[in-house]
C-alpha cells in the first residue's frame, strides 16, 4: 500500500477518462473533479506515515516524499475548488482537461518519490506533457487567441531543457556507473573537484530550474502565464513548483557544498533570478504577466535557501515554497473570480475591487503584501529565515542584494493593491459574489498566510523531520 496516494490519483484520472466519453455538463464535471481532488488529498493524508521503497529501490516512500505529496494534494484541491466551472477552458474538453490535470498531479507525486535517474525522468515527463496539453485547451471566450502559441512555446522550451537534463544524466551515469541517487552521492563525493561532475549536476538541475521558472530557464514564464487559462496558470504557478523544490533538494544535496564553483553558479542564478524577475515585473500591465515575473524572483529566493547546503536551509526552502504556493493561490483565486468569462485581467481592471467584493480585495491585498515580504505574513518570515540561514554561511553580499530586491518588488505589488483599494471609479462594475465555496477557500488561504507568518514553529518542525528523512 506504499503506492496508495498515487493509485488514487491514477484511479481518479481513469474516472475522468470514462466521464469524458459521455457528454456531461461543466458543473457536473467540476463537482466530480472536486470530489476526486478531495479523495486524493485524503489519500495523501492517509499515506503520511508510510515508509519503504518500491520497484527495485528506485522509488522511495518516506516522510520527505509524503509531506510533499500532501502539499501537492492540498494545492491541487485548492485550485480545483476555486476554478469553478473553469470558464477559461474550452467547453467540449472540460473532462479531458481534468484528466490531464490529474495525470500531471500523478507525475509530480511520482517525481517527489523518485530516487533513480530514469524514474525521475519518466515522472518529470509524465507531469510535463500533461501540462503542455492543458495550456492550449483554453477557450476563446476571453478574447485570447494565442493559447496555441503559448502551448508550443511551453513544449519547445520544455523539450530543450529535458535534452539538457538527459545529457547531464548520461554524464552522471558515465562518471559513477549507476543511476541510483544513493550510489551517485557516494561516488561523487570522491570526485567533487572534477569539472565533469559539476557540469553533469548543473545540466540535471536545468530540468528543475525550468519547472521552478529560475533564471536562466525562465523564458517561458510570462508568455505561458498570459496565454494559459487562469485556472491552468494557477495550477502551473503553484503545484509543479512544490515538486521541483523537492527534486532540487535531492539533487543539490548530491553536491553537499563541497564545490565552491557550484555555489557561485547557483548563487548567480539565484540573485539573477531575483533581479530579472523584479525589474521586469515593474513595467507589466497584465496581472498574470506580473505574477509570472514575480514567480521568477521568488524562485530565486527558493534556490537561495538551498545554497546553504544544510538541513536548516532546505527546511526553510520547503517552508518558503509552501508559503509561496499559499500566497500565489490567494492571488489566483481573486483573478479566477474577477475574470468571470475567463479573460485576462489587466492591473487596471482591479479598480474599485473593494466595492465589488471586500473579501476578494482583502485576499488580494494580503496575498500581494505577503508576496512583497511585509510582516507579519508568511512571505516575510520565509525571506527572513532564508536570509538568516544564508548569513550564517557568510554570504553577506548576496544577503544584502536579496534584501534590496524586497524594496524593488514592493512597487509593483503596491500598484495592484492601490488599484484594488485606493481607487473609486465612476463605474465600478457589478458586485461580485465569490460564493460560499470560494469565500471559504479565501478565508482558509488568508488564515494559512497569517498563521504560517506569525507562528512558523510548528510547520518548521514538520519540515525539519521531512528533510531529516533524506539527509
Amino acid at each position, binding site marked *: 500500500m506504499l503506492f496508495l496516494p498515487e493509485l488514487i490519483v491514477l484511479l481518479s484520472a481513469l474516472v475522468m477518462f470514462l466521464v469524458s466519453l459521455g457528454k456531461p455538463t461543466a458543473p457536473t464535471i467540476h463537482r466530480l473533479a472536486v470530489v476526486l481532488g478531495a479523495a486524493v488529498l485524503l489519500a495523501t493524508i492517509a499515506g503520511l506515515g508510510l515508509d519503504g521503497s518500491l520497484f527495485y529501490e528506485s522509488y522511495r516512500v518516506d516522510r520527505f516524499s509524503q509531506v510533499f505529496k500532501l502539499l501537492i494534494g492540498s494545492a491541487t484541491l485548492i485550485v480545483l475548488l476555486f476554478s469553478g466551472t473553469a470558464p477559461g477552458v474550452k467547453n467540449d474538453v472540460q473532462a479531458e482537461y481534468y484528466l490531464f490535470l490529474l495525470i500531471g498531479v500523478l507525475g509530480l507525486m511520482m517525481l517527489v518519490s523518485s530516487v533513480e535517474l530514469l524514474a525521475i525522468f519518466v515522472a518529470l515527463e509524465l507531469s510535463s506533457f500533461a501540462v503542455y496539453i492543458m495550456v492550449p485547451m483554453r477557450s476563446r471566450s476571453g478574447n485570447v487567441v494565442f493559447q496555441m502559441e503559448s502551448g508550443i512555446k511551453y513544449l519547445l522550451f520544455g523539450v530543450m531543457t529535458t535534452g539538457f537534463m538527459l545529457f547531464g544524466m548520461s554524464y552522471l551515469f558515465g562518471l559513477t556507473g549507476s543511476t541510483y541517487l544513493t550510489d551517485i552521492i557516494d561516488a561523487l563525493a570522491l570526485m567533487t573537484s572534477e569539472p565533469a561532475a559539476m557540469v553533469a549536476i548543473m545540466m540535471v538541475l536545468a530540468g528543475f530550474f525550468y519547472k521552478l521558472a529560475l533564471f536562466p530557464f525562465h523564458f517561458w514564464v510570462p508568455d505561458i502565464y498570459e496565454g494559459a487559462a487562469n485556472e491552468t496558470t494557477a495550477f502551473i504557478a503553484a503545484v509543479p513548483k512544490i515538486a521541483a523544490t523537492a527534486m532540487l533538494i535531492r539533487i543539490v544535496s548530491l553536491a553537499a557544498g563541497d564545490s565552491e564553483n557550484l555555489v557561485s553558479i547557483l548563487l548567480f542564478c539565484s540573485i539573477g533570478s531575483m533581479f530579472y524577475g523584479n525589474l521586469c515585473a515593474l513595467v507589466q500591465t497584465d496581472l498574470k504577466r506580473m505574477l509570472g515575473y514575480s514567480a521568477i524572483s521568488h524562485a530565486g529566493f527558493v534556490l537561495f535557501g538551498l545554497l546553504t547546503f544544510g538541513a536548516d536551509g532546505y527546511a526553510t526552502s520547503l517552508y518558503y515554497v509552501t508559503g509561496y504556493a499559499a500566497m500565489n493561490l490567494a492571488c489566483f483565486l481573486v483573478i479566477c473570480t474577477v475574470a468571470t468569462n475567463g479573460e485576462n485581467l489587466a492591473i487596471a481592471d482591479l479598480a474599485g475591487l473593494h466595492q465589488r467584493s471586500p473579501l476578494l480585495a482583502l485576499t488580494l491585498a494580503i496575498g500581494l503584501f505577503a508576496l512583497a515580504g511585509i510582516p507579519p505574513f508568511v512571505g516575510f518570515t520565509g525571506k527572513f529565515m532564508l536570509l538568516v540561514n544564508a548569513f550564517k554561511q557568510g554570504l553577506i553580499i548576496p544577503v544584502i542584494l536579496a534584501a534590496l530586491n524586497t*524594496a524593488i518588488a514592493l512597487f509593483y505589488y503596491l500598484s495592484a493593491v492601490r488599484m484594488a483599494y485606493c481607487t473609486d471609479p465612476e463605474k465600478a462594475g457589478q458586485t461580485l459574489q465569490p460564493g460560499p465555496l470560494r469565500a471559504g477557500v479565501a478565508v482558509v488561504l488568508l488564515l494559512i498566510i497569517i498563521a504560517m507568518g506569525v507562528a512558523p514553529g510548528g510547520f518548521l518542525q514538520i519540515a525539519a523531520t521531512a528533510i531529516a528523512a533524506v539527509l
Partner: protein
Amino acid sequence: MDQLLLNPGFPLLSALIFLPLAGALLLLPLRGDGACRSVSLAVTALVGLLSLLLLAGFDRSTAAFQFGETHPWIAALSINYTVGVDGISILLVLMTALIMPFCVLASWSYIKVRVKTFMICLLVMETAMIGVFVALDFVLFYVLWEAMLIPMYLIIGIWGGPRKIYASIKFFLYTLAGSILLLVAIIWLYRQNGYSFYIPDMMWQSYGSTAQILVFLAFFLAFAIKVPMFPFHTWLPAAHVEAPTAGSVILASILLKMGTYGFLRFALPIVPDATFLMMPYVLWLSIAGIIYGGFTALAQQDMKKLIAYSSVGHMGFVTLGIFLLNKQGIEGAILQMVNHGVTTGALFLCVGMIYERTHSRELSSAAGIGTYMPVFVTFLAFFSLASFGFPGTNGFIGEFMILAGTFQYDIVLALAAIPGAVLAAAYMLRMLQKIIWGGTDNPDQSWISDLNRREIVTLAPFLLFVLWIGLGPAPFIALMDESVSALLTNLQAHQAETLSAVSWLRP
C-alpha cells in the same frame, strides 16, 4: 537578562499591545458606522486608561526594563516575544496610548466613507506603534516596525487628498527601502551575539570599528528616513498634506518619534564608537534640517505643508539633542519628542477642523476666521506659541534644554541653531496672524460655526499638556532621568575604554 525586570502579575504591556488588535477583530462583524466609531473610541480609551496603570507602577529609581514579559516565539531561530519599558520608552508609550482616542474623535465626522475599514486601520496601527516602543526582541521590533506601514499606507491611500496615490506609495517605498538594510544589520548582530535577538544583550559590546560604522549607517538610513532628517524628508510633506487628519496626527505625533527613539535605543548603545565618530556629521545635518525646515515653512501657502516643514525643523532639534550625548541634550530631546507630539498633533487637529468647514487647506481661504471662531483661534494661538517655544509652554522647556546642551558642547553649533528658533517664531506668527485677522481681502467667513463640544473635548487635553509641561516639567523629566543617566554613564565608560585601548596601541 538582568536588565529585564519580569512582571509576575497582570501582563500589562501585552494587554496594551493586543487590546487594540482584539478591538479590530471585534469591529469585523459590526454593521453601522456609528457602532464602529463608538467601539473604537471605547477600545482606545480603555488602552489609554490602562497605560495610566503603567505610570502608577513605574519605578523611577532604576534604569532596567520594567513590566517585562518574555515568551518563546520561534524556537528554531531563538526568537522570543520579549517586551519591557524603561525611562526612554515610557513617555512615548503613554503618549501613543493617550493620543489615539483623540485620533478617533478627530475622525468622527471627517471620515464619512468606509468607516469600519478606517477604524480597523487605526486600531492595528495602535497595536504596532505600542509594540515598537516596548519590543526588546529585534525581530519583534522589526516585524511591528514594518507591519505598521500597511495600515498607514491604506489610511493615506484610501482617505487621503487628491494626490493620495503618489503620497502613499512614496511613503511606503521610502520607509521600506530605508529599513531593508536595518534587517541585514539585525541579522549581523544576531550572529555576533551567539544567535540571540535580545536587544539589551546587543548593547555595549565591542564590535569591530568598521562593522560598527556599517551597522550605524544601516541604522541611520532607517531611522533618519523615519524622523525624517534633512535630506531624507521629502516623503513627509507629501504624506502629511494628503493624509486625513487622524493620519497626519499619527504621523507627526508618533511615527516620527520612532526614528529618534531608534537612535536612542539602538544606535547609541549598540554602536557607541561609530556614534562618537559620526556625531559631528549628524549634528550639522540636524542644523541643516532646522534651518531648511524653517525657511521652507516660511514660504508655504498650504497650512498642512507649513506644519509638515515645521516638523522637519523641530525633529532637527530632537536629533541635535540626542547626538550631543550630554544629559541636557538627551533629556531635552526626549521631552521635545513628547512636546512635538502634543503640539504638532494639536496643530494638525486644528487644521483638520478648518478643513472640515472650508474644505481647503490654503492659508488664504482661512484668512480672518478669528472673527467667527474665537474659541478655535484661542486654542490655535496656544499651540502655535508652544510650537515655536514661547516661555511658559512646553516647547520652551524642550528647546531650552537642547540649546543649553548645545552651548555646553560647542558655541558655534549653538549659534547656528539659534536662527532656527527665530524662524519658527516667524512662520508660526505669520500663520497665526493670517488665520486670526487676515487682511482687507478676507473671503466671506460669516457662515462658519465655532467649535462644537466634541472638538473642544478633543483639543482641551492637548492644551492641558502644553501648559503642564511648560510650567512644571519636573515629573516628566523624573520619569526618564535614571535611564538617561545610565545611558550616559555607559557611553562614557565605553568611550574611556576605547580611548585607553587606543592609547595602549600607540607607541
